[in-house]
């Protein structure tokens, strides 16, 4: 049954499981309006890559990686005209929840690292995958982002 665990699910199932989370992530990074375009582009890219996947492991991190790349492209393309949405965070990290409304001010890599770590609980290994960097670099980006947030907050 090991094979079944790693099997690539039908895209519909992958999409249903990931779409809300990815949309929320993109809204945090880009603001809600830009997130709508980025959302479609993210899942179209996922479809283009889907047939080439060799197994179904790490699909969540894979989806975040694509979304992060799309968000980075989007920000390069456009001058930001709006502040990212303030999305209520209902996890048990009051320190981050208090700081979240400030993440829009962080540089893109730090912003993605902080949101993925504290907003979505991804491991540094997976965040590294999403950012195209090592786990160590991802950890450094997240802690640097959090330090910057705390300085701005105080």
């Amino acid at each position, binding site marked *: 049954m090991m094979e079944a665990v790693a099997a690539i699910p039908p*895209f519909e199932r992958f999409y249903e499981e990931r779409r809300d989370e990815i949309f929320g992530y993109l809204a945090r990074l880009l603001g809600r309006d830009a997130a709508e375009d980025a959302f479609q582009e993210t899942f*179209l890219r996922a479809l283009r890559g889907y047939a080439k996947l060799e197994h179904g492991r790490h699909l969540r991190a894979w989806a975040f990686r694509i979304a992060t790349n799309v968000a980075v492209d989007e920000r390069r393309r456009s001058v930001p005209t709006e502040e990212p949405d303030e999305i209520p965070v209902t996890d048990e990290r009051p320190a981050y929840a208090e700081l979240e409304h400030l993440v829009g001010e962080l540089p893109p890599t730090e912003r993605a690292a902080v949101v993925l770590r504290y907003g979505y609980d991804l491991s540094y290994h997976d965040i590294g995958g999403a950012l195209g960097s090592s786990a160590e670099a991802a950890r450094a980006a997240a802690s640097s982002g959090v330090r910057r947030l705390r300085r701005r907050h105080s």
Partner: protein
Amino acid sequence: MTGVPDELDRRFREAAASEGLLDVAYDIAESPIGPLLVAASDRGLCRISFDPEPEHELEALARAFGPRVLRSASPVDRARRELDEYFEGKRQDFDLAVDLTPLPDFQRRVLEELVRVPYGHIDTYGALAQRIGNPRAARAVGGALNRNPIPIVVPCHRIVGSTGSLVGYAGGLEIKRALLGLEGAILPG
């Protein structure tokens, strides 16, 4: 948690189909015999299921055609329209391409022959076996029909036992009887 707005979800599903990125698109069509799952590959209609719960079908579709299986309405619009017309008694022949490529040779030959049995007519497993040049294969023909992936359009409901008994139907004998009744087929006995 912010959910994806319905309109955005719909736009993505449309874009995925119009950019040709899907192995299979499917949707649920309402019908007098209950909701049907209707699926199409880029070659044509590839599945009609009486089980409207997609979960049961998605894995099988992904195995047969590829993993990019997504619910998307427009690729199956035409099939849905023709099915509506059929159930309203306004259509006798389907003008739809079908995709039988993943099926074993024997089953494909049986189903291709089956499509020639006209609306409102019935035929027997034995006669169908004869027509594919394999007169002793009536039982194997029955097996091939039982696994027909595109019932209604590939009309396995028109095949009955040599005594005229309905014998069997993947969707249940009630549905077989309803389809033959709709077509005005006269059952012996």
